């Protein structure tokens, strides 16, 4: 312990971060290289698409349904008396499509999918199953990482589409049932500020979230050490970092794509 220990801590943390980024880059490069081994990852792709995508739809729908309800109610609460009620539709649609659909789904799936991947691969790492794969002439990156990341890349946007449809649908039902609005009113608001680009933007975001959530899950799984406790640590770290990265990416896309 000396006066320099905080400085040393900064140095250590910096080195660790740079090391992690390097390792992640190495893994990413490996994954790109492993893309050519279609025979290895091909058979795993569909099961992973089911696990990452199809199985995530219920939770995404659940979250989106309540988001839609809350948005509609809060919008009407804010608008009462000042803004025409049909703006509820605009607010629900715009918010769900641009922001909450992709981001909330991404955050939920970073828990569901990212943690699952980190725990599964982490367990395989500490129980030498990854070594076993290698000993059986399988490239573990091709076998484990590529199908998961591809599934995330492809299926996150699909899940987000379902979530967006659900969120708007529940916002619409709330407007009808609780806000005394009519369907044409809601639809009018919905269409008011709608742009096709919004959907493209959301899908780009969703795909990037899929990439980062599955990629980080794989990374923390692969670099897992230290038995069951290590798997727990990796899983937690994967969820925390993936959630943070989702928010960072969200801001990044907004800054790059929404500023015209």
């Amino acid at each position, binding site marked *: 312990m000396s006066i320099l220990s905080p400085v040393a801590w900064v140095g250590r943390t910096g080195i660790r971060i740079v090391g992690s980024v390097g390792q992640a880059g190495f893994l990413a490069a490996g994954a790109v290289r492993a893309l050519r081994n279609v025979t*290895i990852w091909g058979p795993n792709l569909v099961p992973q698409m089911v696990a990452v995508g199809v199985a995530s739809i219920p939770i995404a729908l659940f979250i989106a349904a309540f988001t839609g309800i809350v948005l509609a109610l809060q919008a009407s609460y804010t608008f009462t008396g000042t803004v025409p009620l049909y703006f509820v539709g605009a607010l629900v649609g715009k918010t769900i499509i641009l922001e909450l659909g992709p981001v909330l789904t991404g955050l939920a799936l970073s828990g569901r999918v990212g943690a699952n991947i980190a725990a599964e691969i982490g367990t*395989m790492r500490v*129980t*030498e*199953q990854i*070594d*076993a*794969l*290698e*000993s*059986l*002439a*399988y*490239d573990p990156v091709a076998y484990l990482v590529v199908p998961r990341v591809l599934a995330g890349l492809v299926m996150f946007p699909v899940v987000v589409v379902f979530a967006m449809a659900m969120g708007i649908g529940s916002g619409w039902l709330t407007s009808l049932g609780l806000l005394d609005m009519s369907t044409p009113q809601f639809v009018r608001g919905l269409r008011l500020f709608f742009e096709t680009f919004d959907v493209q933007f959301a899908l780009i975001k969703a795909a990037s979230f899929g990439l980062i959530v599955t990629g980080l899950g794989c990374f923390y799984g692969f670099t897992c050490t230290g038995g069951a406790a290590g798997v727990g640590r990796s899983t937690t770290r994967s969820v925390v970092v993936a959630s943070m990265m989702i928010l960072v990416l969200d801001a990044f896309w907004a800054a790059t794509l929404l500023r015209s």
Partner: protein
Amino acid sequence: MSIELKGVHKAFGASKVLQGFTLDVQEGEIVTVIGPSGSGKSTTLKTIIGLLEPDEGEVWVDGENVHQLGLDALYALRRKVGYVFQFAALFDSMTVRENVAMGLRRMPGLSEAEIQERVEDALSRVDLEGSGARFPAQLSGGMKKRAGLARAIALNPRYLLYDEPTTGLDPLTVTMVDRLILRMRDELQVTSLVITHDIESAYRISDRIAMLFEGQVLEVGTPEEIRSSESSRVRAFVEGKPELLEDHQ
């Protein structure tokens, strides 16, 4: 054709695990590496199939320098080497049969029927005929180990690497595994490298025994030679007398 390690060094951070490990395993021979836990035995095996890169030294398997090989050549080499993991390392999302078939699916030109045939053959060799449809979680420790062995031998490998094949097994299963190792050599002329700290098992199966200590091979010899070793370190280990070690510390 053989396995040869020449002056292999390997360190993980500050801990130097292998410090000039040199050993050769002749064709059709069973060599056992014994040594205390944490002396780098598993590291040795992982270096042989290229899972770990040595910091220094060379590893030659089947006439090829493992760490000079490209990825494809490395995978081709691994198909000739069976690896029996300490805790079996079965893929727990798959049945035993699927586990055993995994390696075969990477062998070019095998039909599904041939694969199934060889899977059944490998399972019968380890007396697991009836357990093919079960998942690893439903197996006992001994059965897992045998399933891991079946997965390794299904490839008809020319080399078999065993990582603690008898650790944690009941005496009956230990004997069975020992016999299996010997049978693999006698029937298929497999070259085997066994890592163990079960000295009795080592005596039963080995053509030669290498004593690993502090990352180096302390002594190599037939079981008889080891049994009658002059080295106090070797005797401390084989006779289970730590007090013999203290003289050197």
